[in-house]
């Protein structure tokens, strides 16, 4: 799968980090601008709720800012940031499980769904139903993997699991989706 290049280079990232650590806080805005969509997308995949995802994404950036001194520069800043985002979103999800889901805020799986609503066929509706049958980690693995912006290694890093585990999760999720889709289609035929 072809993966697009990151928006800023590693050297630019490190230069910006040096400026932030030297007290030029405003340089952090450039890092936020560069990665906000990536961070927001990850948070939205985990939380499936736009306002909560926005809050979690902001928290992730704020946390990253406060822990910037601890960033060891062995990995890319983006990889480190995605891991913080994933953990922040997972914690938020656990906290939010205590609250009732608001119907108005709940998005149905995917942000692009609304614009694609007219052209989406029944089969895609059934695949979306099948997605709900996957366990949480498998579902997140497959969703993040299929976002062209992240490599398998990046998904593994952000989820804190070995690359092979994510590969197995994605493969297993695809098989499970096919299996669930077959079941749904069969039950639809019976109901007709």
């Amino acid at each position, binding site marked *: 799968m072809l993966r697009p290049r990151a928006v800023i280079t590693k050297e630019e990232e490190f230069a910006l980090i040096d400026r932030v650590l030297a007290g030029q806080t*405003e340089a952090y805005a450039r890092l936020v601008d560069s990665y906000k969509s990536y961070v927001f997308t990850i948070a939205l995949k985990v939380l499936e709720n736009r306002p909560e995802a926005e809050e979690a994404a902001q928290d992730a950036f704020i946390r990253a800012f406060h822990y910037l001194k601890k960033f060891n520069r062995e990995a890319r800043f983006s990889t480190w940031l995605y891991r913080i985002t994933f953990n922040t979103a997972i914690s938020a999800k656990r906290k939010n499980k205590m609250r009732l889901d608001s119907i108005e805020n709940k998005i149905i799986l995917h942000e692009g769904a609304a614009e*694609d609503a007219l052209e989406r066929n029944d089969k895609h509706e059934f695949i979306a139903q099948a997605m709900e049958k996957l366990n949480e980690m498998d579902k997140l693995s497959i969703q993040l993997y299929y976002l062209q912006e992240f490599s398998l290694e990046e998904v593994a890093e952000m989820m804190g699991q070995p690359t092979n585990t994510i590969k197995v999760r994605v493969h297993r999720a*695809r098989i499970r989706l*096919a299996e669930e889709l077959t079941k749904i289609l069969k039950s639809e035929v019976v109901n007709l």
Partner: protein
Amino acid sequence: MTPRNDWNDRLIRLMDGELNEAEAAQVERELRQSAELQQQLSQLKEIDRFLQRQNKMVHPSKNFTDQVMNGITLPVRSSALSPKMGLMLLFGVLVITMIAVFSLRSGLFDSMEMPIEFNFQSLYFQKLSVPTLSLPFSGKWLVSAFLILNLVVGFVLLDRTILKPYFQRRAEAVH
């Protein structure tokens, strides 16, 4: 793995180019002969298309960066207690401690000394001879233990609401 899922596994690996030449040739041969397998493959491709189409990047609100930049200037909350709440609790702990100390010193609990006796004989062991259990009870000890516990709680509150935030701010100012 069921035979159907075993085929799903092979078909996914065929789509991903993970089968070796011989395996791929065999799967393709089977595919040509089986309408069911062809349908399975088209279903897997449909799932792939769905995932690629649906998983697009999304963008946060326009003022996202401003909100983050405002957020980073706020002090980090290191404890769930607000300083005001912490100070109020600390004050409460100090008042309780002073009352307890005053009561102890005035001898209010001096008369509360007696043994507590546990007599099981009359309850369950009427035919057996069971010795009576007797434990000394002192009101002074009880209040002293409560006082120590109160002081520990007071120290934790002092640390969370005053000392820790103070040293954190000092460390940040140095950097």
